[in-house]
């Protein structure tokens, strides 16, 4: 392999990490919800898309500056996630798994069609504080946007980790996810923790959506493929491990990019399903997850 080929491979890895960091954020959102409520939230991607449209509306229709627009969007996402858990998910909490799956698929469809109705299906550009320039580093030409996405995602992950491990509220949320009865016994309001978890997941999704939008354009179906890769990442890392979700998401991004560059772009679409299947057959608990046990 020549030096040129090696360099182009390294560049593919970097842009794979950038895409992967978005999958990782969404996978993290999926895992947070799955851990605490045993629900696989198929609407996670559509929530991200919808909240990204909210940011778009604030930015372009109302001319709100970037930072306040993002902040307002995150608040909106949190409230939306919180209310969805409280109003839609709580009543079906003890229903069979299939009913809950149908409910989240229903949410998927609702958000998708409402977005289409309000904003239409024509792809829109989404502003980003970092434009499309490149930077040369150690012989590599790296897109500034890719670095921006990767950097933001990493900062968010660190903040989330600190929240979940260093604050009493975060520790209480983890405790609730692991053992609800014990959580009630120490006086943790379990219902509120579950709502908070959904709110937090929606915030992660909104960030993923806003980071992805400048790259893949804004339209109601923008998150469909991203969600699929995020699922692949979450399953790869093990649905029970936040760390696994991050590692899995990044891996999926890199493999996807390398496959597209080295073999054929057409194969990318099948890759997510192939990875999900392979993991489920070889190591169902994922690379970092613990073996599945039913919560009682």
């Amino acid at each position, binding site marked *: 392999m020549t030096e040129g080929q090696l360099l182009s491979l390294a560049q593919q890895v970097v842009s794979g990490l950038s895409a992967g960091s978005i999958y990782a954020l969404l996978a993290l959102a999926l895992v947070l919800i799955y851990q605490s409520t045993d629900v696989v939230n198929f609407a996670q991607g559509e929530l991200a898309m919808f909240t990204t449209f909210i940011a778009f509306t604030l930015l372009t229709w109302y001319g709100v500056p970037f930072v306040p627009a993002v902040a307002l969007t995150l608040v909106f996402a949190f409230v939306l996630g919180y209310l969805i858990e409280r109003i839609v998910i709580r009543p079906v909490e003890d229903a069979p798994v299939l009913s809950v799956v149908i409910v989240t698929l229903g949410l998927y469809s609702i958000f998708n069609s409402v977005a289409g109705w309000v904003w239409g299906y024509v792809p829109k550009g989404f502003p980003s504080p970092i434009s499309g320039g490149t930077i040369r580093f150690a012989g590599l030409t790296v897109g500034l946007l890719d670095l921006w996405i990767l950097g933001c995602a990493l900062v968010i992950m660190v903040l989330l980790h600190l929240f979940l491990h260093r604050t*009493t509220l975060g*520790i*209480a949320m*983890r*405790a609730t996810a*692991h*053992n609800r*009865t*014990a*959580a*009630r*016994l*120490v*006086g*943790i*309001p379990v219902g509120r923790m579950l709502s908070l978890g959904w709110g937090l997941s929606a915030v992660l999704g909104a960030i993923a959506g806003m980071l992805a939008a400048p790259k893949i354009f804004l339209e109601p179906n923008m998150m469909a493929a991203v969600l699929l890769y995020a699922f692949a990442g979450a399953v790869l890392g093990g649905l029970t491990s936040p760390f696994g979700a991050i590692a899995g998401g990044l891996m999926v991004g890199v493999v996807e990019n390398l496959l597209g560059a080295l073999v054929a772009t057409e194969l990318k679409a099948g890759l997510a399903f192939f990875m999900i299947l392979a993991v489920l057959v070889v190591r169902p608990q994922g690379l970092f997850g613990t073996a599945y046990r039913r919560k009682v």
Partner: protein
Amino acid sequence: MLRLEGVSAAYGRIQALRGVSLEVPAGSIVALLGANGAGKTTTLRVISGLLRPTGGAVYFEGRRIDRLPAEAIVRLGVSHVPEGRQVFAELTVGENLILGAYARRDRQKIPADLDRVFGLFPVLRERRKQPAGTLSGGEQQMLAIGRALMARPRLLLLDEPSLGLAPMVVREIFRTIRRINSEGTTVLLVEQDANLALQVARFAYVLQTGQVVLSGPAAELRQNEAVRRSYLGY
């Protein structure tokens, strides 16, 4: 301090308690005895708010608590150490203890209480950074009790603290239970091992198929022919 008046409870259509009345005076250790399935654990679950009774009433310090959610009951000063410890296995010992104080408003007093728990169970201090799931059964029981104490309860509900533990560990835990009581915490103790329970308790109730069939001072129950035959084995 705690009074149950004709409490009934059910799991679905299975009646678990049928009109249980009992009283726990402040400062005492009261034992709840009975065979498996007699309703001992259910009684504790009703008191701590995990299970809503179908009839009767529960009073704590004169206040009716049987309609309150579990977190409100903890805040009033009732802590429940459940059957099978139920520590947060994936969280560290330190995190478990911090969460024990979750319902409290006086955050600045938490370090002092942490020291108190470490004083009662020095092994927990050594294991502070370890996931609770890696502790031995006895250490997990100590952690479960320590976590409950972090809420500064005035009434401590203990469900089978001796279950599955080596005799030496059981002795140590019961010594600590006595000490906790002597420092001012009232205890309601559910215990399979009637011998052990009647040694530490001042007063005891015997449950059978969801009803109180016998009650009295521990010393008297120890002499009671029926208790001896059914629960003490001599």
